[in-house]
Protein backbone atom coordinates (compact mmCIF):
# COMPACT_ATOMS: atom_id res chain seq x y z
CA UNK A 1 0.00 0.00 0.00
CA UNK A 2 2.63 2.48 1.17
CA UNK A 3 4.96 1.31 -1.54
CA UNK A 4 2.37 2.05 -4.15
CA UNK A 5 1.94 5.44 -2.71
CA UNK A 6 5.66 6.22 -2.86
CA UNK A 7 5.77 4.85 -6.34
CA UNK A 8 2.91 7.09 -7.28
CA UNK A 9 4.65 10.12 -5.86
CA UNK A 10 8.05 9.40 -7.34
CA UNK A 11 6.64 10.16 -10.72
CA UNK A 12 7.07 13.89 -11.31
CA UNK A 13 3.80 14.20 -13.13
CA UNK A 14 1.87 12.61 -10.32
CA UNK A 15 3.58 14.82 -7.81
CA UNK A 16 2.54 17.88 -9.76
CA UNK A 17 -0.95 16.54 -10.00
CA UNK A 18 -1.10 16.12 -6.24
CA UNK A 19 0.22 19.62 -5.67
CA UNK A 20 -2.21 21.22 -8.09
CA UNK A 21 -5.23 19.34 -6.88
CA UNK A 22 -4.32 20.09 -3.28
CA UNK A 23 -4.10 23.76 -4.18
CA UNK A 24 -7.46 23.60 -5.91
CA UNK A 25 -9.07 22.10 -2.84
CA UNK A 26 -7.26 24.31 -0.34
CA UNK A 27 -8.24 27.38 -2.34
CA UNK A 28 -11.86 26.31 -2.39
CA UNK A 29 -11.92 25.57 1.33
CA UNK A 30 -10.31 28.89 2.19
CA UNK A 31 -12.72 30.69 -0.10
CA UNK A 32 -15.55 29.54 2.10
CA UNK A 33 -13.85 30.07 5.41
CA UNK A 34 -12.09 33.40 5.03
CA UNK A 35 -13.68 36.55 6.34
CA UNK A 36 -12.58 39.36 4.07
CA UNK A 37 -13.59 39.64 0.46
CA UNK A 38 -10.11 40.27 -0.88
CA UNK A 39 -8.75 37.21 0.89
CA UNK A 40 -11.56 35.13 -0.57
CA UNK A 41 -10.77 36.37 -4.05
CA UNK A 42 -7.13 35.38 -3.59
CA UNK A 43 -8.24 31.91 -2.52
CA UNK A 44 -10.42 31.72 -5.59
CA UNK A 45 -7.53 32.82 -7.76
CA UNK A 46 -5.40 30.02 -6.32
CA UNK A 47 -8.09 27.55 -7.26
CA UNK A 48 -8.47 28.76 -10.80
CA UNK A 49 -4.79 29.07 -11.52
CA UNK A 50 -4.12 25.60 -10.12
CA UNK A 51 -6.92 24.34 -12.30
CA UNK A 52 -5.10 25.86 -15.25
CA UNK A 53 -2.04 23.94 -14.08
CA UNK A 54 -4.06 20.73 -14.26
CA UNK A 55 -5.10 21.59 -17.80
CA UNK A 56 -1.49 22.08 -18.80
CA UNK A 57 -0.73 18.63 -17.44
CA UNK A 58 -3.45 17.28 -19.71
CA UNK A 59 -1.74 18.94 -22.70
CA UNK A 60 -4.62 21.39 -23.03
CA UNK A 61 -2.50 24.52 -23.04
CA UNK A 62 -5.02 26.57 -24.94
CA UNK A 63 -7.71 25.88 -22.39
CA UNK A 64 -5.28 26.50 -19.54
CA UNK A 65 -4.15 29.92 -20.67
CA UNK A 66 -7.60 31.04 -21.71
CA UNK A 67 -8.68 30.02 -18.25
CA UNK A 68 -5.98 32.18 -16.65
CA UNK A 69 -6.59 35.06 -19.04
CA UNK A 70 -10.33 35.16 -18.44
CA UNK A 71 -10.30 34.45 -14.74
CA UNK A 72 -7.49 36.80 -13.87
CA UNK A 73 -9.64 39.59 -15.27
CA UNK A 74 -12.76 38.25 -13.63
CA UNK A 75 -10.97 38.00 -10.31
CA UNK A 76 -9.84 41.58 -10.51
CA UNK A 77 -13.37 42.75 -11.22
CA UNK A 78 -14.66 40.67 -8.36
CA UNK A 79 -12.11 42.22 -6.07
CA UNK A 80 -13.06 45.73 -7.15
CA UNK A 81 -16.71 45.01 -6.46
CA UNK A 82 -15.78 43.46 -3.17
CA UNK A 83 -13.84 46.53 -2.12
CA UNK A 84 -16.37 49.01 -3.39
CA UNK A 85 -19.52 47.46 -2.08
CA UNK A 86 -18.68 46.02 1.27
CA UNK A 87 -18.06 47.78 4.49
CA UNK A 88 -14.60 47.02 5.78
CA UNK A 89 -15.11 48.04 9.37
CA UNK A 90 -18.09 45.99 10.39
CA UNK A 91 -17.45 42.29 10.90
CA UNK A 92 -20.70 41.06 12.30
CA UNK A 93 -20.54 37.38 13.11
CA UNK A 94 -23.49 35.35 12.07
CA UNK A 95 -25.18 33.56 14.95
CA UNK A 96 -24.23 29.89 15.08
CA UNK A 97 -27.08 27.51 14.57
CA UNK A 98 -26.34 24.06 15.84
CA UNK A 99 -29.15 22.20 14.12
CA UNK A 100 -28.29 23.88 10.84
CA UNK A 101 -24.69 22.73 11.12
CA UNK A 102 -25.62 19.15 11.94
CA UNK A 103 -27.95 18.99 8.96
CA UNK A 104 -25.21 20.39 6.77
CA UNK A 105 -22.77 17.78 8.01
CA UNK A 106 -25.22 14.97 7.36
CA UNK A 107 -25.96 16.32 3.93
CA UNK A 108 -22.35 16.58 2.87
CA UNK A 109 -21.48 13.14 4.21
CA UNK A 110 -24.41 11.71 2.30
CA UNK A 111 -23.31 13.47 -0.86
CA UNK A 112 -19.77 12.20 -0.43
CA UNK A 113 -21.01 8.60 0.01
CA UNK A 114 -23.13 8.82 -3.12
CA UNK A 115 -20.24 10.22 -5.14
CA UNK A 116 -17.84 7.65 -3.74
CA UNK A 117 -20.13 4.77 -4.60
CA UNK A 118 -20.84 6.13 -8.04
CA UNK A 119 -17.15 6.53 -8.85
CA UNK A 120 -16.34 3.10 -7.40
CA UNK A 121 -18.92 1.44 -9.61
CA UNK A 122 -18.22 3.44 -12.70
CA UNK A 123 -16.29 1.81 -15.50
CA UNK A 124 -14.07 4.14 -17.49
CA UNK A 125 -13.44 2.82 -20.99
CA UNK A 126 -9.68 2.85 -21.41
CA UNK A 127 -8.80 4.41 -24.65
CA UNK A 128 -5.55 5.42 -26.26
CA UNK A 129 -5.19 9.17 -25.95
CA UNK A 130 -2.99 10.94 -28.41
CA UNK A 131 -2.17 14.46 -27.56
CA UNK A 132 -2.51 16.59 -30.60
CA UNK A 133 0.27 19.07 -31.16
CA UNK A 134 -2.13 21.50 -32.74
CA UNK A 135 -4.92 21.30 -30.25
CA UNK A 136 -5.71 25.01 -30.54
CA UNK A 137 -6.46 24.52 -34.20
CA UNK A 138 -8.50 21.41 -33.42
CA UNK A 139 -10.58 23.32 -30.87
CA UNK A 140 -11.23 25.97 -33.46
CA UNK A 141 -12.29 23.49 -36.07
CA UNK A 142 -14.51 21.58 -33.68
CA UNK A 143 -16.09 24.75 -32.40
CA UNK A 144 -16.93 26.13 -35.79
CA UNK A 145 -18.06 22.92 -37.47
CA UNK A 146 -19.69 20.43 -35.14
CA UNK A 147 -20.59 22.79 -32.35
CA UNK A 148 -21.32 25.91 -34.29
CA UNK A 149 -24.95 26.15 -33.17
CA UNK A 150 -24.29 25.86 -29.43
CA UNK A 151 -21.38 28.25 -29.87
CA UNK A 152 -23.54 30.86 -31.54
CA UNK A 153 -26.32 30.32 -29.01
CA UNK A 154 -23.92 30.92 -26.16
CA UNK A 155 -22.62 34.08 -27.76
CA UNK A 156 -26.17 35.36 -28.26
CA UNK A 157 -26.94 34.52 -24.65
CA UNK A 158 -23.87 36.42 -23.47
CA UNK A 159 -24.75 39.40 -25.62
CA UNK A 160 -28.25 39.44 -24.17
CA UNK A 161 -26.85 39.27 -20.65
CA UNK A 162 -24.40 42.03 -21.50
CA UNK A 163 -27.08 44.36 -22.83
CA UNK A 164 -29.33 43.47 -19.92
CA UNK A 165 -26.61 44.42 -17.47
CA UNK A 166 -26.16 47.76 -19.18
CA UNK A 167 -29.89 48.45 -19.06
CA UNK A 168 -30.10 47.52 -15.39
CA UNK A 169 -27.17 49.77 -14.56
CA UNK A 170 -28.61 52.61 -16.63
CA UNK A 171 -31.97 52.46 -14.93
CA UNK A 172 -30.36 52.83 -11.55
CA UNK A 173 -28.54 55.90 -12.72
CA UNK A 174 -31.76 57.70 -13.55
Amino acid sequence: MLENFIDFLSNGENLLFIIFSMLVIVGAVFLINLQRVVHMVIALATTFISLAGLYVMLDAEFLAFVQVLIYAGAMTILMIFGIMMTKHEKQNEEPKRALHNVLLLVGSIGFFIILYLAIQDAVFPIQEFTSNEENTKMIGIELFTWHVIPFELVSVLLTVAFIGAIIVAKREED
Partner: protein
Amino acid sequence: MIRTEELLLNVGPQHPSTHGVFRIIVKLDGEVITEATPVIGYLHRGTEKLAENLTYTQVIPYTDRMDYVSAMTNNYVLCHAVETLMDLEIPERAEFLRLIVMELQRIASHLVWWGTYLLDIGAMSPFLYAFREREMIINMFNELCGARLTYFYMRVGGVKWDAPEGWIDKVRDFIPYMRDKLDEYEQLVSGNEIFLARVKGVGKYDAQTAIDYGLSGANLRSTGVKFDLRKNQPYSIYDRFEFDVPVQTEGDCYARYLVRFEEIKQSLRILEQAVEQFPEDGKIMAKVPRVIRPPEGEVYTRIESPRGEIGCHIVSKKKPQPYRLKFRRPSFVNLQILPKLLVGETMTNLVTILGGIDIVLGEVDG
Protein backbone atom coordinates in the same frame (compact mmCIF):
# COMPACT_ATOMS: atom_id res chain seq x y z
CA MET B 1 -29.92 49.48 -6.02
CA ILE B 2 -26.16 49.20 -6.01
CA ARG B 3 -24.50 51.51 -3.54
CA THR B 4 -20.80 52.10 -3.45
CA GLU B 5 -18.94 53.17 -0.36
CA GLU B 6 -18.00 56.84 -0.15
CA LEU B 7 -14.35 57.48 0.39
CA LEU B 8 -13.16 60.39 2.48
CA LEU B 9 -9.81 61.43 1.10
CA ASN B 10 -7.56 63.89 2.81
CA VAL B 11 -5.51 65.58 0.11
CA GLY B 12 -2.62 67.39 1.69
CA PRO B 13 -1.30 69.29 3.58
CA GLN B 14 1.66 67.37 2.18
CA HIS B 15 0.79 66.42 -1.36
CA PRO B 16 2.76 66.93 -4.56
CA SER B 17 0.01 68.86 -6.29
CA THR B 18 -1.20 71.29 -3.68
CA HIS B 19 1.76 73.58 -4.35
CA GLY B 20 2.56 73.94 -0.69
CA VAL B 21 0.80 73.14 2.51
CA PHE B 22 -2.75 73.28 1.33
CA ARG B 23 -5.21 70.71 2.49
CA ILE B 24 -8.49 69.75 0.94
CA ILE B 25 -10.81 67.12 2.28
CA VAL B 26 -12.74 65.50 -0.52
CA LYS B 27 -15.55 62.99 -0.44
CA LEU B 28 -15.18 60.61 -3.32
CA ASP B 29 -17.80 58.45 -4.94
CA GLY B 30 -15.54 56.25 -7.00
CA GLU B 31 -13.39 58.87 -8.67
CA VAL B 32 -16.04 61.59 -8.54
CA ILE B 33 -15.87 64.30 -5.91
CA THR B 34 -19.15 64.89 -4.10
CA GLU B 35 -17.91 67.39 -1.58
CA ALA B 36 -14.74 69.37 -1.09
CA THR B 37 -13.67 71.34 1.96
CA PRO B 38 -10.48 73.35 1.74
CA VAL B 39 -8.47 73.82 4.91
CA ILE B 40 -5.87 76.57 4.94
CA GLY B 41 -3.71 78.32 7.46
CA TYR B 42 -0.79 75.91 7.64
CA LEU B 43 1.55 78.65 6.48
CA HIS B 44 0.00 81.49 8.43
CA ARG B 45 2.82 83.59 9.79
CA GLY B 46 0.81 86.54 10.95
CA THR B 47 2.43 89.02 8.60
CA GLU B 48 -0.22 91.59 9.37
CA LYS B 49 0.30 91.29 13.12
CA LEU B 50 4.06 91.37 12.78
CA ALA B 51 3.82 94.49 10.64
CA GLU B 52 2.20 96.42 13.46
CA ASN B 53 5.47 96.38 15.35
CA LEU B 54 7.77 97.08 12.41
CA THR B 55 8.64 100.20 10.49
CA TYR B 56 7.38 100.38 6.93
CA THR B 57 10.78 99.55 5.49
CA GLN B 58 11.06 96.58 7.79
CA VAL B 59 7.76 95.22 6.51
CA ILE B 60 8.99 95.00 2.91
CA PRO B 61 10.96 91.77 3.40
CA TYR B 62 7.85 90.21 4.88
CA THR B 63 5.97 90.95 1.69
CA ASP B 64 8.70 89.07 -0.20
CA ARG B 65 7.71 85.98 1.69
CA MET B 66 4.01 86.28 1.05
CA ASP B 67 3.87 85.51 -2.63
CA TYR B 68 7.37 84.17 -2.90
CA VAL B 69 6.97 83.43 -6.58
CA SER B 70 6.31 87.07 -7.32
CA ALA B 71 8.12 89.05 -4.63
CA MET B 72 8.71 92.18 -6.70
CA THR B 73 5.04 93.00 -7.13
CA ASN B 74 4.50 92.53 -3.41
CA ASN B 75 7.34 94.90 -2.66
CA TYR B 76 5.74 97.37 -4.94
CA VAL B 77 2.24 97.29 -3.55
CA LEU B 78 3.43 98.16 -0.07
CA CYS B 79 5.76 100.91 -1.24
CA HIS B 80 3.07 102.22 -3.50
CA ALA B 81 0.58 102.39 -0.63
CA VAL B 82 2.95 104.32 1.60
CA GLU B 83 3.91 106.60 -1.26
CA THR B 84 0.26 107.30 -1.99
CA LEU B 85 -0.27 108.21 1.64
CA MET B 86 2.77 110.49 1.60
CA ASP B 87 1.99 111.82 -1.87
CA LEU B 88 5.57 111.17 -2.98
CA GLU B 89 6.97 111.87 -6.39
CA ILE B 90 9.07 108.93 -7.56
CA PRO B 91 12.11 109.57 -9.78
CA GLU B 92 11.72 108.50 -13.35
CA ARG B 93 14.58 106.02 -13.35
CA ALA B 94 13.25 104.33 -10.24
CA GLU B 95 9.81 103.99 -11.80
CA PHE B 96 11.32 102.39 -14.87
CA LEU B 97 13.42 100.02 -12.84
CA ARG B 98 10.36 99.04 -10.81
CA LEU B 99 8.29 98.48 -13.90
CA ILE B 100 10.96 96.40 -15.57
CA VAL B 101 11.48 94.16 -12.57
CA MET B 102 7.74 93.80 -12.08
CA GLU B 103 7.18 92.73 -15.66
CA LEU B 104 10.16 90.39 -15.53
CA GLN B 105 8.68 89.03 -12.34
CA ARG B 106 5.35 88.50 -14.04
CA ILE B 107 7.06 86.47 -16.73
CA ALA B 108 9.01 84.49 -14.15
CA SER B 109 5.88 83.82 -12.14
CA HIS B 110 3.89 82.72 -15.17
CA LEU B 111 6.76 80.47 -16.18
CA VAL B 112 6.71 78.80 -12.79
CA TRP B 113 2.99 78.38 -13.15
CA TRP B 114 3.31 77.02 -16.66
CA GLY B 115 5.92 74.46 -15.70
CA THR B 116 4.26 73.25 -12.55
CA TYR B 117 0.83 73.18 -14.13
CA LEU B 118 2.07 70.85 -16.83
CA LEU B 119 3.82 68.81 -14.20
CA ASP B 120 0.45 68.48 -12.46
CA ILE B 121 -1.03 67.31 -15.71
CA GLY B 122 1.73 64.75 -16.01
CA ALA B 123 4.15 66.22 -18.51
CA MET B 124 7.54 66.45 -16.91
CA SER B 125 9.73 68.17 -19.47
CA PRO B 126 8.03 71.61 -19.71
CA PHE B 127 8.83 72.15 -16.06
CA LEU B 128 12.54 72.07 -16.76
CA TYR B 129 12.24 74.23 -19.84
CA ALA B 130 10.29 76.87 -17.94
CA PHE B 131 12.75 76.88 -15.09
CA ARG B 132 15.64 77.36 -17.46
CA GLU B 133 14.11 80.63 -18.66
CA ARG B 134 13.08 81.62 -15.16
CA GLU B 135 16.64 81.07 -14.07
CA MET B 136 17.79 83.75 -16.49
CA ILE B 137 15.35 86.23 -14.97
CA ILE B 138 16.42 85.28 -11.50
CA ASN B 139 20.05 85.75 -12.43
CA MET B 140 19.20 89.23 -13.62
CA PHE B 141 17.48 89.96 -10.33
CA ASN B 142 20.42 88.51 -8.52
CA GLU B 143 22.71 90.92 -10.30
CA LEU B 144 20.40 93.76 -9.42
CA CYS B 145 19.81 93.16 -5.74
CA GLY B 146 21.83 90.16 -4.66
CA ALA B 147 18.91 87.88 -3.95
CA ARG B 148 17.27 85.18 -5.99
CA LEU B 149 13.84 84.84 -4.46
CA THR B 150 13.17 87.33 -1.69
CA TYR B 151 14.54 90.49 -3.18
CA PHE B 152 13.79 93.33 -0.74
CA TYR B 153 14.55 95.52 -3.72
CA MET B 154 12.08 98.36 -3.51
CA ARG B 155 11.93 101.02 -0.86
CA VAL B 156 9.43 103.72 -0.10
CA GLY B 157 10.40 106.38 -2.58
CA GLY B 158 12.28 104.31 -5.10
CA VAL B 159 14.53 101.30 -5.35
CA LYS B 160 17.55 100.34 -3.33
CA TRP B 161 20.03 99.55 -6.07
CA ASP B 162 20.67 101.06 -9.43
CA ALA B 163 20.97 98.80 -12.44
CA PRO B 164 24.59 97.71 -12.86
CA GLU B 165 26.48 98.31 -16.07
CA GLY B 166 24.99 96.41 -18.96
CA TRP B 167 22.00 95.18 -17.04
CA ILE B 168 19.48 96.86 -19.29
CA ASP B 169 21.17 95.24 -22.29
CA LYS B 170 20.68 91.87 -20.70
CA VAL B 171 16.99 92.57 -20.39
CA ARG B 172 16.96 93.73 -23.98
CA ASP B 173 18.61 90.52 -25.14
CA PHE B 174 16.26 88.45 -23.07
CA ILE B 175 13.14 89.65 -24.90
CA PRO B 176 13.76 88.05 -28.33
CA TYR B 177 15.17 84.98 -26.63
CA MET B 178 12.02 84.53 -24.58
CA ARG B 179 9.81 85.09 -27.62
CA ASP B 180 11.67 82.34 -29.38
CA LYS B 181 11.19 80.00 -26.44
CA LEU B 182 7.50 80.82 -26.21
CA ASP B 183 7.07 79.61 -29.77
CA GLU B 184 8.80 76.44 -28.75
CA TYR B 185 6.47 76.01 -25.77
CA GLU B 186 3.50 76.52 -27.98
CA GLN B 187 4.66 73.81 -30.35
CA LEU B 188 5.35 71.39 -27.56
CA VAL B 189 2.25 71.85 -25.43
CA SER B 190 -0.45 74.17 -26.66
CA GLY B 191 -1.56 71.85 -29.44
CA ASN B 192 -1.10 68.55 -27.68
CA GLU B 193 -4.30 66.50 -27.89
CA ILE B 194 -3.96 64.98 -24.46
CA PHE B 195 -3.29 68.36 -22.93
CA LEU B 196 -6.29 69.91 -24.65
CA ALA B 197 -8.50 67.06 -23.54
CA ARG B 198 -7.32 67.56 -20.01
CA VAL B 199 -7.97 71.30 -19.78
CA LYS B 200 -10.76 72.14 -22.21
CA GLY B 201 -14.10 72.51 -20.50
CA VAL B 202 -12.64 71.70 -17.10
CA GLY B 203 -13.35 73.97 -14.15
CA LYS B 204 -15.74 76.15 -16.08
CA TYR B 205 -17.46 79.20 -14.64
CA ASP B 206 -19.05 82.28 -16.19
CA ALA B 207 -18.25 85.94 -15.76
CA GLN B 208 -21.08 86.44 -13.28
CA THR B 209 -19.71 83.78 -10.95
CA ALA B 210 -16.19 85.09 -11.32
CA ILE B 211 -17.26 88.60 -10.32
CA ASP B 212 -19.39 87.27 -7.52
CA TYR B 213 -16.43 85.40 -6.08
CA GLY B 214 -14.20 88.41 -6.49
CA LEU B 215 -11.77 86.58 -8.74
CA SER B 216 -9.04 88.61 -10.31
CA GLY B 217 -6.18 88.25 -12.73
CA ALA B 218 -6.27 85.52 -15.33
CA ASN B 219 -9.06 83.78 -13.41
CA LEU B 220 -11.33 86.73 -14.10
CA ARG B 221 -10.10 87.56 -17.59
CA SER B 222 -10.64 84.00 -18.75
CA THR B 223 -14.40 84.61 -18.52
CA GLY B 224 -14.43 87.57 -20.86
CA VAL B 225 -14.22 90.37 -18.29
CA LYS B 226 -11.59 92.74 -19.58
CA PHE B 227 -10.26 94.02 -16.30
CA ASP B 228 -6.60 94.62 -15.77
CA LEU B 229 -5.55 97.15 -13.17
CA ARG B 230 -2.62 98.18 -15.30
CA LYS B 231 -5.12 99.46 -17.85
CA ASN B 232 -8.28 100.16 -15.88
CA GLN B 233 -6.81 101.85 -12.86
CA PRO B 234 -3.25 102.57 -13.94
CA TYR B 235 -0.50 102.89 -11.40
CA SER B 236 3.21 103.49 -11.74
CA ILE B 237 3.91 104.44 -15.36
CA TYR B 238 1.86 101.77 -17.07
CA ASP B 239 -0.24 104.32 -18.90
CA ARG B 240 2.78 105.17 -21.04
CA PHE B 241 3.06 101.78 -22.66
CA GLU B 242 1.17 100.05 -25.32
CA PHE B 243 -0.05 96.57 -24.52
CA ASP B 244 -3.18 94.49 -24.78
CA VAL B 245 -5.15 92.82 -22.06
CA PRO B 246 -5.58 89.22 -23.14
CA VAL B 247 -9.13 87.98 -22.66
CA GLN B 248 -10.78 84.63 -23.27
CA THR B 249 -14.45 83.89 -22.98
CA GLU B 250 -14.62 80.19 -22.19
CA GLY B 251 -13.83 80.43 -18.51
CA ASP B 252 -12.26 76.97 -18.35
CA CYS B 253 -8.76 75.88 -17.50
CA TYR B 254 -7.71 76.18 -21.11
CA ALA B 255 -8.87 79.79 -21.26
CA ARG B 256 -6.85 80.54 -18.15
CA TYR B 257 -3.88 78.83 -19.71
CA LEU B 258 -4.19 80.93 -22.86
CA VAL B 259 -4.62 84.15 -20.93
CA ARG B 260 -1.50 83.57 -18.87
CA PHE B 261 0.45 82.51 -21.92
CA GLU B 262 -0.58 85.64 -23.77
CA GLU B 263 0.26 87.74 -20.73
CA ILE B 264 3.87 86.64 -20.98
CA LYS B 265 3.93 87.97 -24.52
CA GLN B 266 2.34 91.23 -23.49
CA SER B 267 4.82 91.63 -20.66
CA LEU B 268 7.58 91.22 -23.21
CA ARG B 269 5.98 93.98 -25.24
CA ILE B 270 5.95 96.30 -22.24
CA LEU B 271 9.55 95.41 -21.46
CA GLU B 272 10.58 96.13 -25.00
CA GLN B 273 9.20 99.65 -24.79
CA ALA B 274 10.46 100.21 -21.28
CA VAL B 275 13.99 99.21 -22.20
CA GLU B 276 13.94 101.64 -25.12
CA GLN B 277 12.65 104.53 -23.03
CA PHE B 278 14.85 103.78 -20.06
CA PRO B 279 16.32 107.08 -18.82
CA GLU B 280 20.07 107.34 -19.19
CA ASP B 281 20.65 108.44 -15.66
CA GLY B 282 18.89 109.98 -12.76
CA LYS B 283 18.13 109.37 -9.17
CA ILE B 284 16.68 106.13 -7.97
CA MET B 285 15.36 107.40 -4.66
CA ALA B 286 13.00 110.24 -3.90
CA LYS B 287 13.70 112.50 -0.99
CA VAL B 288 12.33 110.52 1.88
CA PRO B 289 12.83 111.22 5.58
CA ARG B 290 14.95 108.73 7.43
CA VAL B 291 12.04 107.63 9.52
CA ILE B 292 8.95 107.29 7.43
CA ARG B 293 5.86 108.63 9.18
CA PRO B 294 3.03 108.79 6.66
CA PRO B 295 0.27 111.27 7.53
CA GLU B 296 -2.65 110.09 9.54
CA GLY B 297 -5.20 108.45 7.32
CA GLU B 298 -6.15 105.42 5.39
CA VAL B 299 -5.29 104.14 1.96
CA TYR B 300 -6.04 101.09 -0.15
CA THR B 301 -3.82 100.57 -3.16
CA ARG B 302 -4.04 97.67 -5.53
CA ILE B 303 -1.91 96.55 -8.39
CA GLU B 304 -2.03 93.72 -10.89
CA SER B 305 0.18 90.94 -9.60
CA PRO B 306 0.65 87.82 -11.73
CA ARG B 307 -2.08 86.17 -9.68
CA GLY B 308 -4.54 89.03 -9.76
CA GLU B 309 -5.32 92.05 -7.70
CA ILE B 310 -2.95 92.40 -4.79
CA GLY B 311 -4.00 95.19 -2.50
CA CYS B 312 -2.55 96.89 0.52
CA HIS B 313 -4.74 98.62 3.04
CA ILE B 314 -2.86 100.84 5.47
CA VAL B 315 -4.27 102.69 8.44
CA SER B 316 -1.67 105.16 9.56
CA LYS B 317 -1.58 107.08 12.82
CA LYS B 318 1.48 109.12 11.86
CA LYS B 319 3.76 106.62 13.54
CA PRO B 320 6.75 104.87 12.00
CA GLN B 321 4.78 101.65 12.28
CA PRO B 322 1.49 101.03 10.51
CA TYR B 323 -1.51 101.01 12.83
CA ARG B 324 -3.10 98.33 10.71
CA LEU B 325 -1.72 96.77 7.59
CA LYS B 326 -3.91 94.46 5.58
CA PHE B 327 -3.05 92.75 2.35
CA ARG B 328 -5.65 91.72 -0.11
CA ARG B 329 -4.00 88.52 -1.25
CA PRO B 330 -5.26 87.45 -4.67
CA SER B 331 -4.62 83.73 -4.12
CA PHE B 332 -6.64 83.81 -0.92
CA VAL B 333 -9.64 85.34 -2.66
CA ASN B 334 -9.29 83.26 -5.81
CA LEU B 335 -9.12 80.02 -3.89
CA GLN B 336 -12.61 80.48 -2.47
CA ILE B 337 -14.21 79.30 -5.68
CA LEU B 338 -12.46 75.93 -5.49
CA PRO B 339 -15.09 73.94 -3.53
CA LYS B 340 -17.74 75.11 -5.94
CA LEU B 341 -15.72 74.04 -8.96
CA LEU B 342 -14.78 70.65 -7.61
CA VAL B 343 -18.18 69.13 -6.97
CA GLY B 344 -18.93 66.57 -9.65
CA GLU B 345 -15.39 66.54 -11.01
CA THR B 346 -13.02 63.60 -10.94
CA MET B 347 -10.01 63.29 -8.71
CA THR B 348 -7.80 63.98 -11.73
CA ASN B 349 -9.57 67.25 -12.41
CA LEU B 350 -8.98 68.35 -8.86
CA VAL B 351 -5.34 68.77 -9.72
CA THR B 352 -6.10 70.45 -13.03
CA ILE B 353 -8.52 72.93 -11.49
CA LEU B 354 -6.40 73.73 -8.47
CA GLY B 355 -3.38 74.26 -10.67
CA GLY B 356 -5.46 76.40 -13.03
CA ILE B 357 -6.35 78.83 -10.26
CA ASP B 358 -2.65 79.39 -9.68
CA ILE B 359 -2.25 79.82 -5.97
CA VAL B 360 0.81 80.42 -3.84
CA LEU B 361 0.28 79.16 -0.36
CA GLY B 362 2.46 81.78 1.26
CA GLU B 363 -0.01 84.27 -0.01
CA VAL B 364 -3.16 82.33 0.77
CA ASP B 365 -2.18 81.98 4.39
CA GLY B 366 -0.62 85.40 4.78
